[in-house]
């Protein structure tokens, strides 16, 4: 027994000795190098950490912007941290351990806003920002409970892409703004040829309910009441169900193909292969469609008869972490990032500044024009900004939408989702 105790003491002592030894080594090893985690700022160089989810060319642009900022701010290093697909995980770890990046890309404000610095005073006091130059409404997406948490840096609306060659081959005229969903269904059916594995349209197997809101609004429906308190009678209304049922029906009757979920062969891939004639998305795949040699056109979303077309905006904003120790520098960086000069460099999505758009005449280009007409139509507030419990509700709604594209009846599925969600809203 005694022996065991002494052994335990020995082991513990050894452990502690080694632990302290390791700790000591570590300090020595770190001493010579530049500070890694951004905790203490040495006198000469300040390191600003900037986290983004962008990859590829879009990431390159951001690195360029960061470099320009460094050039105009001597003694500052911007460490661009590209989290790509692991964005949420990295932020979780960073916030969880109170070691988040100073500045970060942001869209999911309801989830993160408690860890973000309110930017109202910065935005209103700093005249250089020139808030009026931004498209009206973009600031709403970063506002929670009346407080602003993010400055818009880029955005996109959703349009319909079409493959001109496939339309030409079938002698079908290109769709025009103002077309109806019935026209769309008609075209889709005509362009479907099962023997060639060719389809008029692709329906995502896993939809982001956020993106579907445009269709729901266009049909006069909504996920949630205007005060953000009720979903019964909204999420399962006739209009909402109709809009979602339409996609389920297209899969059922074969005029659309079900395209893979995340990481699978996506609808974009099949569109690039010339097997889907029409595809609905934001601006993200535009460049890759061109590179794949597809002759594409864009058109605004179809309308339901007698109802105005509505759209939804996907925005990338910049936020500052509450735990950041250099918020003024962070603000300087954000300000530069949304300046005319930097916004012009961001070609992977759409410019947030009206003056830049006017200067580049982006909204005159027929390929880009539909994004701007859709922007004018995007004046509804998305559901996730209206209820703090939306995440839970959305889990049920997503399951319902998935059930519909796999053949369930939309009204049944949505009724079920409302039933399953009610307990979160109490």
């Amino acid at each position: 027994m005694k022996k065991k105790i002494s052994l335990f003491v020995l082991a513990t002592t050894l452990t502690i000795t080694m632990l302290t030894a390791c700790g000591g080594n570590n300090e020595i090893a770190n001493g010579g190098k530049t500070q890694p985690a951004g905790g203490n700022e040495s006198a000469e160089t300040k390191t600003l950490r900037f986290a983004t989810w962008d990859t590829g060319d879009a990431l390159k642009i951001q690195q360029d912007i960061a470099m320009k900022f460094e050039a105009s701010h001597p003694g500052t290093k911007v460490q661009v941290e590209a989290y790509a697909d692991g964005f949420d995980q990295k932020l979780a770890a960073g916030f969880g351990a109170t070691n988040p990046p100073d500045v970060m890309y942001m869209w999911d404000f309801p989830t993160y806003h408690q860890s973000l610095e309110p930017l109202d005073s910065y935005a209103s006091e700093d005249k250089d920002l020139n808030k009026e130059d931004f498209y009206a409404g973009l600031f709403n997406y970063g506002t929670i409970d009346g407080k602003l948490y993010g400055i818009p840096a880029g955005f996109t609306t959703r349009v319909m892409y079409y493959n001109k060659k496939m339309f030409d081959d079938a002698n079908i005229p290109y769709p025009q703004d103002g077309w109806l969903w019935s026209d769309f269904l008609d075209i889709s059916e005509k362009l479907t040829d099962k023997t060639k594995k060719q389809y008029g349209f692709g329906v995502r197997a896993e939809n982001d309910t956020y993106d579907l809101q445009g269709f729901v609004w266009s049909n006069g429906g909504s996920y949630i009441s205007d005060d953000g308190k009720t979903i019964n009678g909204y999420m399962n209304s006739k209009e909402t169900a109709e809009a979602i049922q339409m996609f389920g029906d297209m899969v059922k009757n074969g005029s659309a193909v079900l395209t893979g979920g995340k990481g699978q062969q996506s609808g974009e891939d099949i569109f690039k292969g010339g097997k889907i004639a029409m595809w609905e998305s934001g601006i993200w795949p535009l460049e890759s469609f061109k590179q794949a040699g597809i002759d594409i056109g864009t058109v605004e979303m179809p309308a339901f008869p007698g109802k105005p077309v509505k759209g939804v905006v996907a925005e990338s904003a910049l936020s500052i972490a509450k735990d950041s120790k250099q918020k003024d520098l962070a603000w300087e960086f954000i300000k530069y990032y949304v300046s005319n000069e930097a916004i012009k460099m961001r070609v992977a999505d759409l410019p947030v500044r009206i003056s830049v758009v006017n200067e580049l005449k982006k909204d005159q280009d027929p390929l880009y024009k539909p994004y701007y007409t859709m922007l004018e139509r995007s004046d509804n507030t998305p559901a996730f900004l209206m209820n703090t419990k939306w995440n839970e509700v959305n889990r049920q709604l997503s399951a319902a939408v998935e059930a519909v594209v796999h053949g369930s009846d939309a009204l049944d599925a949505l009724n079920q989702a409302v039933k399953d969600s009610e307990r979160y809203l109490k």
Partner: protein
Amino acid sequence: MAQTYPQVAGELTVSFKPKRKRRWGGVVPCLFIFPWIFGFLVFTLGPLLFSLIISFFDWPIVGKVRFIGLGNYVDMFTDDPLFWKSLGVTLKFAALFVPLNIIVALGLAMLLNQKTRGSAIFRTAFYLPSVISGVALAMIWSWVYSGDYGIFNYFLSLLGVQGPDWLNDIHWSLVAMVVASLWGQGSMMLVFLAGLKGIPKDLYESASIDGAGMLRQFVSVTIPMLSPTILFNLITSIIAAFQQLTLALLLTGGGPMKATYFYAMYMYENAFKFFKMGYSAANAWFMFLIVLSLTFLVFKSSEAWVFYEGEMKRKPHKKSKPDGRRRSA
């Protein structure tokens, strides 16, 4: 000098009988296992206890931490259909994957154990998928499985069969995941192969002289001699099956209709999509207990079927001979 050990095949009998005092009883073994103890105390125990503690809290990562006692556990069992759903999916996956994985890996290892030319090439080819990183692996599989444009269905169509849209078909997607997981069995096959090479040739020779056929040799020589390796692969397979996440995350996202919504994925989403860290920790501890008890059961049962030559000092010759020989002798 020689130490005698009780014949404890499973090596995990926890007995309270006083053990004989031995010269090396205390300090030396601890020096050997010290690195692990140190690593455990420093890198594992802390985080582990932390996760246990937060499982009693409502910890949304961003926002306020609140003690809720057993609330997470109660919610999990009584108020969360996804918990049961994902547990079912994982159990189904494990029931398919674990036996198949062992059979396939052992089969391939035995195939590679044959004397052939170019065995180095074949071994490398069989191991190849295990070298590919997860991101690319998922992408490759999505192109193999795609319903209309997939390589697999293309080959099936050459045979006149119309295959389903594997990953988007509620009935097939889990099977597709099992097959994709089996494809990366390289490490397990290699462990088996190393084990097979370790079986003394003369055991087979004497069995063969005794007139044992191939099946008989397999049952009475290969299986017992390989049993420590089988035990290892069985346990690591079970653990792998319960932790299966990468493929689901990258390939199906848990769909269609939650058909591949693994328990690990459920945990992952609770933690990083819904930021319910405390709840996710409760999920994790429940799974931990399940896997631990399964492992414990396997170990207990292994006393009956696992055979260690190194532990056979007293009567090595009789036991290590195949049954066939003893019977005919």
